[in-house]
């Protein structure tokens, strides 16, 4: 036991997850065992994984070859700082979601709990294997296992046709992405026939082939991450999946795509070109804006969060683009700053988005309602869930002193450094990008106020909400774990940056660790104190002290008298909860300002209608202008090919015969 390396512990953890899944299948119908024993066990395994990952982060890369798989083709695994960092995210966020899941899954909803347990833990284990894989073969096996297990989890409630459809869409786009990734590896191995990552690192591709590999990687991993225009599966699959699964998919699985992109572009490829960065920056920015604008007009709470994930992925891609740009100009320090911002956002998004998704799960269980138009006032019936979700909301809006703000701050700082670039055109454009990011962040705040305000505040829009109950102990514990991290990541950024430092150093040749440590743990100054500094702890203490002083002084100098009365009704006593802003109403200004983004279908009642109804539907342009035409072309082609299918054996034999003749003809030449 003493000589165990970190990677061994990680393999034990992955094995633990697989074992938990296997136990789940044995206790197929024993709901209590699955919920109360297996999921908490999975959570403990997650913590083990995270602990081992921290250990691995500090150490040197460790390589293992597992003799499984095809003969002559073993699994190569490698634990370096990049994979350890993502394992930390998987383990940390996975632990919280698993605890929540222990209280979440109920009996009699689609897939039996034992099977669900298997799929769930297989999903977790495959994500961990994806980031550990050190050859294309192992990577693709893990990647496909991840896609399939999450597909089955999405379709857990497979009796609902919409959910089945969402699942198929997800599967389709995941496979388009997988093909691109496979081709990317094909380019990377440069005709050597050796698909290990170690070999790929040694190849030096020409700029053309390197660009081809990079673009294929962007396409492949982008499809998984929800990059425009391959984002359409996200808003369908996330609402369909059970909430803990949505949390894992959004908080963790999307990050494996970010991992893949980082791995290919900084580790496997030996050179980085400037225009890759510009392209990725542009795609990322557009994805982010698109995501956030759509998020503001959603009426389904989980769809809203799904679009918000698209936004965050866009920001991450933009940060990677900036890193590439700096790296290609040989500015290692700035590349490290941008990459740190990216990785910081990876962690903070993993925690706050998981928190928000499991929060919607708790609401869904308490009310049976996903539509924002039927919710409201839940802070009075489920205070625990409401206040914990509020923390997630603040983190996700990028408000100080929580975690979202730190990554936003780092990202903006790295954008403001660009004047050092030798290209004057980029110099001009990139601060404008910083302004756009500020706009996106502010819109994210709008979205989150809508999300929280409509669900938890105001008066219940539906009578049945009066019977809503707060989350159970497991649910609260899982949410609290995630919320604590949202706060911790916000208040103590320096510790996390110390963990990110070993990741950025090998990838871009510099790290922030030493600079940050120089100012003590309470002050974050990524470059120099004169340039910029942020002290979240002081900031937090300042707000709290001001709050307490104001409260205390008002009490001491005046009084604390309070009277409860009915709200002011403007002289119109027949107000109902339905007169509050609806989700549509709250998003209406954004819908109006960004009208070209949406495809709107509006039915306005005429003045003579007896029962006037107003209906508006907001859909995606991409769906109508890109996906449906492609689908039509595919269908047309399929129809043509379908004519070959005659149903008569003789005809099929004829096909084979003709093919044989053709082949012989070819051989003869």
């Amino acid at each position, binding site marked *: 036991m003493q000589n165990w390396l970190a990677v061994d512990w990680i393999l034990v953890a992955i094995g633990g997850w697989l074992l938990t899944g296997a136990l789940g299948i044995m206790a197929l119908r024993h709901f209590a065992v699955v919920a109360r024993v297996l999921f908490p066990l999975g959570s403990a395994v997650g913590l083990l994984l995270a602990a081992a990952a921290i250990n691995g982060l500090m150490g040197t890369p460790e390589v293992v070859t597992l003799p499984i798989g095809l003969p002559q083709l073993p699994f190569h695994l490698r634990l370096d700082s990049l994979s350890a960092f993502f394992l930390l995210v998987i383990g940390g966020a996975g632990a919280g979601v698993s605890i929540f899941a222990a209280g979440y899954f109920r009996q009699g909803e689609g897939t039996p709990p034992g099977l669900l347990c298997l799929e769930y833990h297989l999903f977790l284990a495959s994500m961990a294997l994806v980031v550990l894989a050190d050859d294309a073969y192992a990577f693709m096996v893990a990647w496909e296992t991840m896609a399939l297990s999450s597909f089955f989890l999405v379709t857990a409630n497979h009796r609902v046709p919409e959910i089945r459809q969402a699942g198929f869409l997800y599967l389709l786009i995941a496979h388009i992405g997988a093909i691109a990734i496979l081709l990317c590896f094909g380019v990377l191995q440069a005709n050597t026939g050796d698909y290990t990552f170690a070999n790929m690192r040694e190849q030096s591709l020409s700029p053309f082939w390197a660009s081809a590999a990079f673009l294929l990687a962007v396409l492949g991993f982008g499809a998984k991450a929800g990059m425009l225009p391959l984002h359409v599966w996200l808003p369908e699959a996330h609402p369909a999946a059970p909430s803990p699964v949505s949390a894992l998919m959004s908080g963790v699985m999307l990050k494996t795509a970010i991992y893949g992109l980082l791995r290919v572009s900084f580790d496997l490829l030996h050179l980085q070109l400037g225009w890759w960065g510009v392209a990725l920056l542009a795609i990322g920015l557009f994805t982010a804006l698109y995501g956030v604008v759509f998020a503001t007009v959603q009426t389904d709470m989980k769809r809203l969060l799904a679009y918000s994930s698209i936004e965050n992925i866009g920001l991450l891609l933009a940060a990677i683009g900036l890193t590439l740009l700096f790296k290609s100009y040989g500015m290692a320090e700035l590349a490290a700053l941008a990459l740190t911002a990216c990785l910081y956002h990876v962690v903070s998004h993993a925690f706050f988005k998981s928190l928000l998704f499991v929060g919607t799960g708790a609401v869904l269980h308490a009310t049976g309602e996903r539509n924002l138009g039927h919710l409201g*006032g839940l*802070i009075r019936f489920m205070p625990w869930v409401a206040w914990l979700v509020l923390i997630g909301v603040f983190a996700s*809006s990028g*408000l*100080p002193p929580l975690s979202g703000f730190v990554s936003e*701050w780092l990202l903006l*700082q790295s954008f*403001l450094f660009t004047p050092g670039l030798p290209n004057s055109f980029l110099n*001009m454009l990139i*601060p*404008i990008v*910083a*302004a756009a990011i500020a*706009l996106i*962040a*502010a*819109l994210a*705040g*709008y979205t989150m*106020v809508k999300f*929280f*305000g*409509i669900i938890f*505040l*105001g008066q219940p829009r539906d009578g049945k909400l009066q019977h809503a109950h707060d989350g159970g102990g497991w649910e609260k514990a899982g949410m609290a774990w995630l919320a604590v991290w949202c706060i911790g990541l916000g208040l103590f950024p320096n510790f996390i940056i110390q963990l990110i430092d070993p990741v950025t150093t090998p990838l871009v040749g510099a790290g922030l660790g030493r600079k940050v440590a120089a100012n003590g743990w309470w002050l974050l100054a990524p470059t120099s*104190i*004169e*340039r*910029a*500094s*942020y*002290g*979240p*702890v*002081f*900031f937090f203490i*300042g*707000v*709290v002290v*001001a*709050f307490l002083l*104001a*409260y205390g002084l*008002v009490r001491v*100098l*005046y*009084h604390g008298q*309070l009277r409860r*009365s*009915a*709200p*002011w009704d*403007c002289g119109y006593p027949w*107000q109902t909860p339905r007169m*509050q*802003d609806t989700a549509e*109403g709250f998003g209406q*200004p*954004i819908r109006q*300002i960004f009208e070209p983004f949406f495809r709107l279908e509006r039915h306005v009642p005429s003045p003579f209608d007896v029962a006037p109804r107003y209906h508006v539907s907001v859909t995606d342009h991409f769906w109508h202008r890109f996906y449906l035409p492609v689908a039509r072309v595919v269908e047309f082609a399929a129809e043509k090919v379908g004519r070959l299918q005659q149903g008569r054996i003789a005809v099929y034999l004829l096909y084979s015969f003709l093919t044989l003749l053709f082949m012989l003809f070819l051989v003869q030449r």
Partner: protein
Amino acid sequence: MSPTGFLSQALAILAALVLAPLLMGWVNQWRAWFQNRRGPGLLQPYRTLNKLFVKESVVAETASPLFRAAPYVVFGCMALSCGIIPTLSTELPLSLAADAIALVGLFAVARVFISLAAMDIGTAFGSLGARREMLIGFLAEPALLTVFFTASLISGSTALTSIVESLAHREFAIYPSLAFAGLAFSFVSFAENARVPVDNPATHLELTMIHEALILEYSGRHLALIEWAAALKLFAYSCIGLALFFPWGIAKVQDPGALLYAVPVLVGKLAIGGFLLALIESVSAKMRIFRVPEFLATAFLLAVIGMLVHFLLGA
């Protein structure tokens, strides 16, 4: 923390708390004079605050704890923000903890809290106010950030104290990009402080009010805190404007003597600023709410152009 640092920090916050209602009174007085009224006098805001503190608070039955906590949070955020902005001296220990970006974040915290509190009661007005406030916020916040970016590109720092140091205490230079930033900033300040072209602080007309709709349910000490916070916000924005565009007279580090004359200079500058604010408010008409996004988008784009001009002219 050095003693002078502590002193100037405490002085900055105290000056803000005391002067903010006075600034409000000054602006209102001038507005009254422009309208040929006698006006309530300079000290009216203090009297109003005192009256509100003495009265009991009436809270709606449906209010959650969030509603009651919000006024204190908003007040705390605004008081803290006045401690970050270099009003009197550039020696502010707190400004290490929060730079310009964090300051914008602090304003955002206050905005989100007050909007959530407005939605908490569940009346039509509250959510209407929250929606409009967030609408203004989502455009004003990036515009403000971009203004700060322009200033920080000039001075090479996002810390407000360093920005002021480099603008005020170095060799005098004209920065054309700041002309754009200044224009954008004044647009943003009008919107953020609910002043006339965007919102009218003196009206309760349902269809047009923004800020007043948010705080409709507040009374007594809660309302007093919110009013005070609004005054502090006006003060903070005025001081940001003065610090970025007219930074002369702010004391340097380790210079307690300069602190003495920094106070009258600040009061003088605020007096002129308040007069101009009242003048602009009196001669302009309130715009339709649908024009507000356009107004703020213009501000945002002006700020972006300011940044561009910085690169165009190299200054």
